[in-house]
């Protein structure tokens, strides 16, 4: 669980907040990008096409048909263990909620995607590095159950440092719960497309994100079980170039396609239309 990196980055962002951020530096090619240009370009660097992290709301805008999204998520987290590290979990939650503008690290709801009735769930990295605790697990599970009940296709966009430490064993159990829920969907032959974005690691990769009918990854995304820092510490060697990136996973047979964000909606639409039972006879 490479959460340390996330916390460090968060702190850096917090300090810089006083200065209006008009420009963003591309982490890949160092180009200075005017923020508005970046946003209008789906958060892809106009110079080198590096895919920067995309806010959850923008994801929904990009994937759901205009005006079709109807939010179903909204559960709030609790502190089941009374977890205190250098700061109480409840304090952290308050801060994350303020920063992300939502109760936990997920948002989702009913929508159509290319006309196909769907359930879309999007994780939010801005909230505790997209970590999965009870709320994320329950929202995913409810989303899957709703899709099964209403004959909807399921699309989940993952971005996560893994299971949330502050809910310990209960976070771990969300891996089982979400995975079990997917059986309900499969029993009705409804398609599930999992989209892996930068980064997707730990307990999210090792549960619902990895067992979809079709798994797509955005270019250059870090995807894996263990975080690179943990692996480096374990084997005491440098990691090969491109290790755990989307293209590496494609080469090793773990994802179906690496898809440019600008083509993501079209690709998802085609897959859903080909697989969803209700569209079998009247596809374009």
């Amino acid at each position, binding site marked *: *669980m490479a*959460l*340390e990196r996330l*916390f460090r980055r968060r702190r850096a962002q917090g300090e810089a907040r006083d200065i209006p951020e008009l420009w963003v530096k591309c982490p890949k090619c160092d180009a200075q990008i005017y923020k508005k240009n970046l946003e209008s370009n789906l958060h892809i660097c106009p110079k080198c096409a590096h895919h920067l992290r995309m806010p959850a709301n923008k994801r929904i805008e990009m994937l759901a048909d205009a005006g079709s999204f109807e939010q179903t998520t*909204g*559960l*709030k*987290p*609790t502190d*089941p*263990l009374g*977890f*205190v*590290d*250098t700061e109480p979990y409840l304090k952290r939650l308050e801060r994350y909620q303020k920063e992300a503008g939502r109760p936990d690290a997920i948002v989702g709801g009913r929508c159509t995607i290319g006309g196909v009735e769907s359930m879309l769930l999007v994780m939010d990295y801005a909230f505790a590095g997209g970590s999965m*605790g*009870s*709320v994320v*697990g*329950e929202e995913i*599970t409810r989303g899957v159950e709703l899709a099964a009940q209403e004959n909807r296709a399921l699309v989940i966009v993952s971005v996560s440092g893994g*299971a949330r*430490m502050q*809910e*310990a*064993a*209960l*976070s*771990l*159990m*969300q*891996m*089982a*719960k979400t*995975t*079990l*829920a*997917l*059986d309900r969907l499969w029993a009705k032959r409804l398609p599930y497309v999992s989209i892996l974005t930068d980064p997707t*690691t730990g*307990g999210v*990769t*090792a*549960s*619902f*994100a*990895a*067992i979809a009918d079709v798994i797509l990854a955005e270019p250059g995304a870090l995807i*894996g*079980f*263990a975080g690179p820092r943990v*692996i480096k510490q*374990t*084997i005491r060697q440098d*990691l*090969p170039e491109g*290790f755990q990136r989307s293209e590496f996973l494609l080469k*090793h*047979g*773990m994802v179906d396609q690496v898809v440019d964000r600008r083509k993501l909606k079209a690709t998802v639409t085609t897959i859903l239309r080909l697989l969803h039972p209700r569209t079998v006879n009247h596809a374009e």
Partner: protein
Amino acid sequence: MRRRQPQQGVPMPLEFEKPIEELEAKIAELEGFAASSGVDLSGELQVLRERLAQLKTETFEKLSRWERVQLARTPGRPTTLDVIAGIMTEFVELYGDRTYGEDPAVVGGLARFEGTSVVVVGHQKGRDTKENIRRNFAMPHPEGYRKAMRLMDLADRFGRPFISFIDTPGAYPGISAEERGQAWAIAQSIQRMARLRVPAIAIILGEGGSGGALAIGVGNRVLILENAWYSVISPESCAAILWRDAREAAKAAEALKLSAPDLLSLGVVDQIIPEPSGGAHRDPATAIANIKQALAVNLEDLLKLGPEELFEDRYRRFRGLGQYQS
């Protein structure tokens, strides 16, 4: 008590065991002297034995979560193969994942338990350093989980109960494991086990390290030994991230609420299997007998359910886990 082999990272004896072991040594020495010299020391010995009993009670009845974690890792604790040998007969070990290779960190096969033919799988720690290296300290690669899934197929096909023993620091975090889809193997194993139409019982023997443990932990019943732990992350790794110092592991162990009583109250486990005073390594035979008894009772219950009932029972068990507000 069995002779313990030194192992990396595990002080021996454990810090809180030292006064006990010193006193035990002193008693043994006096007993030896009394026997060889013929001097009657029974009065002195009696006093020392009483003090020992009192010291043990004081030490073992108020173990911290971190001390329990250390007990869970201590050499001499029964491993999966020890338990299989102790409670089952006709064990036929089956090797390999039929895809890539054989992972010695996961063992499994066919066996008979109290007259019932079962399929059994478990993480396997080494009983000495050499074996631990061979078994990668019970940290499986994807092929370990694929072996487990193959055995789950076998259990379903022949309608045999599936028994798993959990004892791993975690799935192996390495290049080879990532290349071969560690996350995929774990997710698939969770799903495969959830789909079993036969009774599934998981028993946490020592360490329940995160997803690597859960991959074979989707039982209708999940039982845990008294001093075993089960968590989303090890105390050391948690401390390294949240406290930025792995030496704060004791604090992390407390915060993670990873002990058997914690897990029982959270509903993560269904039953605690008692260990002999001071931990399973002090009297493995008693620990193994307790495991046998708990397994027998739970298996008998589950054998009353039909295939679909077992599947739904498992679904319900995990569906209810988690705490949130609407």
